[in-house]
Structures are given as C-alpha cells and as structure tokens.
C-alpha cells in the first residue's frame, strides 16, 4: 500500500495527535530533572510541581500586597483590550472592505492607500503611538487596530470581488439598488468569511497586545511575563504562556462555533 493511502483509524488518530504533546512534555521533564538535581533552586526549567504552586499563587490566592487575584486581573485587562480592539477593527474592515470591493469608485480611492499602509510594520509605529496617544490603553488598542484592520480590510475587499459577477447582475435585473445589493446580497455572504479572516488575525492581535504591554502597563498577561522575566521566574512565565495559548485556542473555537451556528449554509457549502 502506498503511504499516501494509509489512513489512521479513530484510535490511531488520537494517539498520533497526542504523541507530539507527550514527547514535548517528556523531554521537558527530563531536562528539568537534570537541571534540578544539580541545582535544586534552578529557575530555568521549573518542575511541574513548582509551576502548579506558582499558578496557585497567581490564580487561586489573592496577592498579599494588593488583595487581587493577579492572573484573573491580568486576563481581564488583556482580554478587554484585545476584544475592544478586535471589535473596532472588524467593524472598520467590514464597512471599508465591502465598499472597496463593491464600488469601483471607493476601490480607486481607498484601495491603493490600504495596500500601501498594510505594508507598514505596526510594531515600528509603537514608539510613535506612545508619544501621540500616551502610555495608556488608547495606544495599545490603536496598535492592535492598526495591526489587524488593514489586512482584514484587504481580505474583505478581495472576497467581495470573488463573488460571482452573475449574482450582482441578477440582483440588478431584479431591480435592486446599490444599497440593497450591498446589504442584502453582499453583506450576508461576507459575514461568515469575515469570521474566517478574524480567526487568522487572532495570532497577530495577541502579538501586538503583548508587545504593547511589555513597554508600559500595570496589569495584563504580557505585562506580567515581562515583569517576572526580570528575576527569571519561569514558573510563572510558562503557565502564563500556556494560559495565553488556551485563551487564543478558545477564541478560535468560539468563532468557529459561531460560524457554524449562525451560518450553517456556509459550512455546508464548504464541505460540499
């Protein structure tokens, strides 16, 4: 049998999926043990016990100095920034993407500027943003918005242009105005595709958030990581990284679920 025809059954799929995780965890445990036997205070590769202990301190017990649960406070702070920014950029991208994609006049006006601006590396703008908007939340939200909106907009415009011309012509022969075509033909078809694009932009959004929090903040997941880095507290950093990964994964899962529930026809068409 050829290798490309070899399909794992359910059990094997599960085992194969779990295997890389087990290998990574196993390798980590061995490395950690080796370092901890030579120096029990080693901070670089803490044991899982030490990480659980640090997690308990950060998430389950109030901070003795401020009385707040640091990890939840950090999570709340980061998520509110991230979600606000994503809501803003999604809305902008939806409106401008449809305009640019559907109306040649809008395309001629905004298309080139969006294409050029989307080449600006957003992190390079960070020092400017901090001076213009201050060190508060506004600068952080702006960074994420700038970093994600342009790509979202370009993608939206391309997807509008991908719609079959026949659909638009048909709607016009049925007497639809531009507004009606925009809101009744294009918009409903764009919403599930927008979810796809937002899913892809979640990664960059997190990146920008953490970069901004590293520079000036008093709470947030990125803030905490860069703060405890000062004394090499890997027992805090590693659980935080895992937690951020879980959050990002859950957001992705949530969007996929939303797409399936709200636009069953789209998922159906994709599978067909």
């Amino acid at each position, binding site marked *: 049998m050829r290798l490309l025809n070899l399909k794992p059954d359910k*059990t*094997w799929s599960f*085992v194969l999926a779990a*295997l890389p995780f*087990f*290998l990574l*965890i*196993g*390798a*980590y445990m*061995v*490395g950690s043990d*080796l*370092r901890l036997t*030579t*120096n*029990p*205070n*080693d*901070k*670089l*590769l803490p044991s899982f016990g030490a990480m659980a*202990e*640090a997690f308990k*301190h950060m998430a389950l017990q109030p901070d003795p100095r401020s009385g707040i649960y640091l990890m939840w406070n950090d999570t709340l702070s980061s998520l509110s920034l991230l979600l606000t920014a994503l809501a803003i950029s999604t809305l902008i991208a939806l409106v401008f993407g449809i305009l640019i994609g559907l109306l040649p006049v809008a395309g001629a006006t905004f298309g080139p500027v969006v294409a050029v601006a989307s080449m600006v590396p957003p992190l390079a703008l960070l*020092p400017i943003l*901090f*001076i213009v908007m*201050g*060190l*508060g939340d506004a600068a952080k939200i702006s960074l994420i918005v700038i970093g994600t909106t342009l790509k979202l907009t370009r993608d939206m415009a391309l997807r509008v242009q991908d719609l079959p011309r026949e659909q638009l012509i048909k709607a016009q022969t049925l007497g639809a105005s531009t507004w009606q075509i925009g809101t009744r033909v294009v918009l409903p078809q764009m919403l599930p595709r927008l979810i796809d694009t937002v899913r892809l932009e979640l990664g960059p959004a997190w990146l920008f958030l953490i970069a901004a929090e*590293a*520079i*000036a*903040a*008093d709470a947030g997941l990125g*803030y905490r990581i*860069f*703060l405890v*880095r*000062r*004394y*090499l507290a890997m027992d805090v950093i590693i659980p935080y990284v895992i937690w951020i990964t879980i959050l990002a994964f859950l957001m992705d899962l949530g969007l996929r679920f939303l797409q399936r529930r709200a636009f069953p026809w789209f998922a159906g068409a994709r599978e067909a």
Partner: protein
Amino acid sequence: MNRSVKSFLKGAVAAAASFALVLPAAHAAEKKDFKVAWSIYVGWMPWGYAADTGIVKKWADKYGITIEVKQFNDYVESINQYTAGAFDAVTLTNMDGLSIPAAGGVDTTAVIVGDFSNGNDAVILKGKDKLEDIKGQTVNLVEFSVSHYLLARALESIKLAEKDVKVLNTSDADMASAYKTADVTAVVTWKPIVSTILEDKDAKKVFDSSQIPGEIIDLMVANTEVLKDNPKFGKALVGIWYDTMKALAADKAAKEHMAKASGTDVAGFDEQLATTKLFSEPKDALAFVNGPDIKTTTERVSTFLFDKALLGKDAKEAGAIGVEFPDKSVFGDKANVKLRYDATFMQAAADGNL
C-alpha cells in the same frame, strides 16, 4: 485501545525520555575557556575597551586561558544567561545579583567591586521641585530594578511608602519618549536617560543616588564553583580591570573609545563619570568592601527584595539568602549563602601578586 497502540505508546514514552532537552549547566572543574557577559553602562564600559584593545587577551595569555567577552544590549538578558549557566561571569548590581542568580540558587561571588552610583540614578518630577510632591502621582519606572529601590529609599526619606504613589512599569528603552507625553509626570531612571530627560525645562531632579551613596553597587561577579576550581580566571579578571582603569586615567583615547561605545561623546561620558564613584585603585575598592556600610546596605536591599517577594516564594525572612562578606561574617541564612563578596583577588592586585 488495541495492542499495537499500547506497544507504540510504550515506545513513544521511552523515546521522549531519551529525547532530553539538556541546557548547558555551569559545570565546575578546571577548564581553559571562559565567557564573560557585560552590558552598556558607564561603570562597565571598560570591559568593552579591554576586549577591543587586547588587555583581555594579554591577561588571558598570561594565565594560559581564553576569555571571551560578550556585550549584551539587554542587561537583564545578560544576567539571565549567566544564571542559566551559559556565562561564567557577568556585570550586575548588588541588588540584581541577589534577586536573580543568588535567588536562582547559583552561588555567585563578587570578584570586582567596580563602582557605586553616586547620582547616576534619579527621581525626576515634571514641573514640581520638591520630592514631597510625588505623593499621589503615577511613577514610571522599571519595576523591581534599582530605580524601584531608589524610589523606595526616596519615599522612606520623607516618611511616605510605596502605597502613596502608583508605580507603572515602563521599559527603560521608552522612558525618555514616555516622559514627553502629557500623562507622565514622575519617572525614576538612570543615566544616560536621566540626562536626556533633564534637558527638558520642566524636568526637576528631586532625589538621586548620591543621597544614598554606596547602596547601588556595580560588580563583576563570577560563578563561585568555577572560581574555586579556576582561581586563574579571577586573577585575570582583576588584572584586566585595573589595567583598564589605568588606561582610562592616563589615555585620552581610552575615554574616547568608551564614550563612543556608549553612544555619547567625551563630555557626555565625563558627565556620567562625575556621578559614578569609580574605584580606580584596588585599595579604594578594598576599603569599601571591607567597610561596615556594605553590610547595612545588604540588609536594606535584602529587606526591599523580600518585601517584593523577589527572594523566592519559600523565603520566610529578609535573610533567606545568605550574603558573605570578606571577613567571612554572613548576613542572613548561613546554610544558604549564595552571594559572596570576596576581596582576595582585589587584595592580590593591591599587593602586586597577580
């Protein structure tokens, strides 16, 4: 689960165990090749000069060893690399030496006491010229750094505590531009950032490290085990340092070299040197490290670090990490000495026994 899956899993676990992620741990034993990390700071610029002009090679050759001197752009990263075991020696402050390598279980010895900050670190207010005005303000600083310690000492001097201000962690790289924004009204930072900020007319220096002289000490530290097995390495470091000090005092080109490497000119470098108490002669450093003040300072710094929970989660008191002084007296836990001030190498330099 079928049998083939089970046997496969067994194999996988074995494979994981053998696929070990081993990082270089500092291994003691006699060796020939040593690595030293340093970062840009007025009191450490001599290391870059010594490496570039052959002073390092001269002393390494004398003892039949090699010393690689590597400059880091990121101070904390250089300490982390040392703590992880990738370097044998690093430049750091007394406070960071206690909170990073020592608290991380890496037994560390201060070979050279290079200088202390005598005004290099400062509290700056915008438009206010009394320290008392800091009350209720948001203070931008690098949290848990010597700036944080300076703020604590400044507040203490006017009977305030950290709860009377709000600390906002701000990256040192962005401190100068942060000061230019309207919502930043108080900062604690170090030179050359201090000099840049003070160019602004509104900026008023209200407290600096010359008011707590000798408390922020810049050291060259080495891994204690490595040093014990290789005293040559310690001797070479001391030899390099005092040779370079002589060059700095005698040779204008040396100062120019260091000024340029730290991104300023001779005037700017002199301005930084003026607020740095550099120990150019081994006898000055010896007087300082053998004196009583360093013990008081150690207690203060340990207390600060303990209050900030930087001595480790298991630390029950400020003396959880023992600090040994040249006279072999110990502050804190004698069973857990992780930071040692060792005068023997500087003494050898003073006696001409290198």
